[in-house]
Structure formats: C-alpha cells, structure tokens
C-alpha cells in the first residue's frame, strides 16, 4: 500500500515572491543548463563553413 503522507514542500517567501524550494531548484537548474548550452564548446564545432 502506497503512503500518501508526503510532507508539503518548504517555501521561499520574499515580498511578492512565493516559490517552493523544489520549484526554485528546477528554475535554477534550467538557468544553469541554458548558460552551459551557450558557453560550453560543441564537439567538432571548430572551423568555419558548412560541416556535417
């Protein structure tokens, strides 16, 4: 039998902002992933012109 007594998430409250810690972690992870996608070099991405 599955248990459903999962405790509610903690919330970050600041002025108008109210966000659960898991959601804040996900937003942070997305921003980090976005920045990494912009700055990390792509394998075989050197050189110019058309490539496979």
């Amino acid at each position: 039998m599955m248990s459903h007594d999962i405790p509610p998430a903690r919330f970050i409250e600041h002025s108008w902002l109210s966000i659960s810690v898991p959601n804040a972690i996900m937003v942070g992870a997305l921003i980090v992933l976005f920045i990494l996608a912009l700055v990390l070099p792509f394998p075989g991405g050197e050189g110019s012109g058309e490539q496979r």
Partner: protein
Amino acid sequence: MSQTSEDRSQTRGNWTAALGEAAERNLPFSKLLPGTQPAYVASWIYVFGVLTLVCLALIIATGVVLTIFGPSWWHTSLAGHYINSLHFWSVQLFFLFMVVHLWGKFWMAAWRGGRARTWITGGLAFVVSIIAGLTGYLLQTNLDSQWIAFEAKDGLNATGVGAVFNVANLGQILMFHVFLLPAVIAAVVLGHVLWVRLRGVVPPIDAAAIEAARSEGASR
C-alpha cells in the same frame, strides 16, 4: 523543376497535383533531410529542439504501451511501474528541454526571416503540451489525481471551459489525453518541423558579422 505554361494549365483546379508540385518545389528531400548544416548550428543551444522531439517520441511510445495494458497493470506490476515511470520522466525532460529551447529561440529572435509560423506553432505546441500534461496528472487514478482534479475544477470553471473540459470527468479527460491532445500536438509539431526545414534553422543575430570576420581572416 521548370514548369511550362501547358503543365500549369493542366494542374489548375487540381489541388492534389498543385499540393504535390508545391511540396516538390519548396520541400525537396535535400531540404527535408539535409546532409549538412550551417557552421553556427554546431552549438549546444541548437540541440534542445531535437532533444524535445526525442522525448516526445518516448512519451508516445510509452503512452501506447500504457494504453494497451491499462491502469490496473501500471499500478500493480513491476513492468507497469517501469513503463509508467518512463512515461512520467520523459514528460519531465520534454518540458525541461522545451523550456531551454524556447529561451534559446526567444533570445535569438527566432521569428526573423519569415519564421513567424515556426514561432507560432512552437508556442502553440507548448500551450497544448501543458494541457496534455494536466490531463496526464488527472489520469494517475490515485489520490493525487483526485486532489489535482478538485483543485483545478474551480479555476477552470471560472473561465467557462468546464462545459467542454471537465477535469472531474475521468472518461472525457482520458479521451482528451490519449487521442485529442496527442493528435493536436502531433499535427502542430509536424507543422513546426516542416517550417523549420522550409525556412532553415534560424541563424544567431550576429551570424553575418561572424561569417564575414571569418572569411576576411581566412582570405588574409
């Protein structure tokens, strides 16, 4: 392929021939399945669209298995739990990749160069996917899904959609989730991908300047 005025007069009023000719003219196989891409595509930010498509394929494949065996199977058997989890996590990654894809395209103003339809179909796919995700949560057939349905119903009823989209009606939500919404998403995503192929992948805003600097450097 060049077309004589006699050919054109023969296909006038014939929509199947006209459609075939337009497809042949605008979307030849060299454009539909290109062997090369411009140099600027070699960046991680250009990977997230296709990652989203991979997740969509996984969602559909696992969804088909869940549809065949049903809730009693996915709640009680090990294989059912596994496929159910694959379906769930494919959805999580689908949204994660789609959001990064959206951000990437937003900041490079991807609607440039006659790509407005690509941008609109992408936005539409995002919105319809959110509704599909909600209906998926409603179909867990457990306490969570009941709680979500009764939290969502008042908000949805306030907008007036309750008559045609009743989150407390399991049968209706099931049909939305396994047929109507996947059909809409498939059609919209197909249009999105075809328009990407038609117009080509959007270049970065400074692509022309980079290419010019490169060719100038190479010529020295």
